[in-house]
């Protein structure tokens, strides 16, 4: 499923406009530990986290994670948004927590909603 479709279905806020929205999401990974994501996320995963600083963009870019969802309503900085656009990472957000967000994305990716 493309980021564009997923963003719409999950009613996510997009901070980076059309950046990367045609890329395909094949799975997901939930973690706030950066080395855990670095070592264990799979290419194509959408990354769900409460971390909101520049290093998460670097990690998504290095590991070919097409999008990040920042949970709990935390807003990314302008600097993060700029870096995400440069690195072609879709930076998304939701007021929901990581548990609910993960469940929702799981259902959408598996055709349950």
């Amino acid at each position, binding site marked *: 499923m493309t980021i564009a479709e997923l963003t719409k279905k999950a009613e996510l806020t997009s901070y980076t406009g059309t950046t990367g929205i045609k890329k395909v999401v094949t799975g997901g990974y939930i973690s*706030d*530990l*950066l*080395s*855990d994501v*670095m*070592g*264990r996320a799979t*290419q194509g995963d959408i990354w769900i*986290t409460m*971390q909101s*600083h*520049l*290093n*998460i963009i*670097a*990690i998504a*870019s*290095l*590991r070919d994670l097409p999008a990040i969802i920042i949970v709990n309503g935390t807003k990314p900085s302008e600097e993060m948004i700029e870096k995400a656009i440069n690195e072609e990472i879709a930076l998304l957000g939701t007021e929901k927590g990581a548990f609910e967000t993960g469940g929702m994305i799981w259902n959408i990716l598996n055709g349950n909603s």
Partner: protein
Amino acid sequence: MTLNYSISGGDFASAGNASSAVKSILKQLNIDNGTIKRVVISLYEAEVNVAAHADNGTITVDIDNVSVKMVICDSGPGIPDIELAMKEGFSTASAEVREMGFGAGMGLPNIKRNCDLLNIKSIPGEGTELNIEILLNQAKPTER
């Protein structure tokens, strides 16, 4: 081909720049994705360790037909017990660094898991040198 970079202690904003540059070069050289992934994970973790734990570091990356060799050398506190530092979960990261999501004690284990050769030399009070080698075209499952 030899590439050189530098990294400063505390400079988290720049951590990852060397990994990102090396990734683009390996892509241009048509190196396979699996190998690129292993190089990127290893180099990123080493870079972040300089930012998180040391004062100043240099990175040298050597690419030839056989392997990618990386030397990450820093001046800093050094690692008093390397065996302990290699254990998953062991970390001396500050509260500030942990708040950013670093300090899970998974960086060195990630490097170990993804490279073909790892050599750590460290003198407490002086610094640390990591030698990492990743062979080209060697499918190595990194998933456990």
